[in-house]
């Protein structure tokens, strides 16, 4: 899973978000390192919807413009959980090995 996809799914993990909300959440989650642009975001959202990992929660009209809220599907939650567990396991092993090698302070 690409990092942008992982971060988008993570942004939706604790509730539905609209497009702009996802961009700000992703920036916050990544500590400002990943700044999604609209083209990238909506290409990813379209793919995630096609894969049934996210779905539209609701739509609103704000200042005459459509605002669509997205949420994780049960399948999306499962995929995100599995990916998070995989990354966590890898990170744990990496940190353990670094500690054994004395490469980082404990």
């Amino acid at each position, binding site marked *: 899973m690409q990092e942008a996809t992982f971060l988008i799914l993570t942004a939706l993990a604790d509730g539905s978000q609209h497009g*702009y909300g996802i961009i700000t959440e992703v920036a916050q989650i990544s500590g400002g390192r990943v700044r999604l642009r*609209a*083209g990238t975001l909506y290409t990813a959202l*379209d*793919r995630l919807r*096609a894969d049934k990992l996210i779905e539209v929660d609701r739509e609103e009209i704000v200042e005459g*413009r459509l*605002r669509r809220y997205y949420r994780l599907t049960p399948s999306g939650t499962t995929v995100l959980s599995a990916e998070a567990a995989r990354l966590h396991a890898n990170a744990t092993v990496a940190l353990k090995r670094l500690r054994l090698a004395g490469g980082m302070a404990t």
Partner: protein
Amino acid sequence: MSYSPELERGYRRLLACYPRSFRRENADEIIGVLLATAAEDQRRVGPAESADLIRGALRMRLRPPGRPPGAVLGAMRLMCAGAVASVALLITMVVTTGDLKSAILALDPAFTAAQWHGVLVELAVREWCAPLVVFVWLWLAWANGRGRNWARLALGAWFIFLVLNTLSSLAQGVALVAPADFAVGVVECLIAATATSLVFTRRSWLYYQPEPVRY
């Protein structure tokens, strides 16, 4: 930011690169996000924004509407391999033209210059048609990847055409005088046969709908 009609027009021009169905459903929403993320007093679309939108449009246009099943993905890869085999056949034909004449003369010492001219004309036609063959392979891969039902029928027809073409070559004795060309032609037939069988499997069947569904 302060609203700029000029900026919105610029965004809409770039969004015109996206597929119509995607635009119809998402354009207003994307415009809203683009305007919300634009810099204060921005009047023109920046180069990075343009690149991002064009890249997104290319991805939307090139990728299939849904994730094809493994069998269809395998068939798509084989069709791309078919295109590569066509290029290989073209190169083989060009490289072995000199050997061809000596091979023909070894088999038939009475082979005339007029007959050799006929062979050269046929070779030239085949070489000029090679880019078209590559295009057909890639076009079939693209259309099958998008779940077009007619595309797998076209692939079946393509397979039959390649088999007939190879049998015709066999009847003309190509296997004897230009074994490399013939071998590559047979490889193309095998690729087409395998790809055709993959797109007609039960798992592939559901993917091919009369009208591919978009969300």
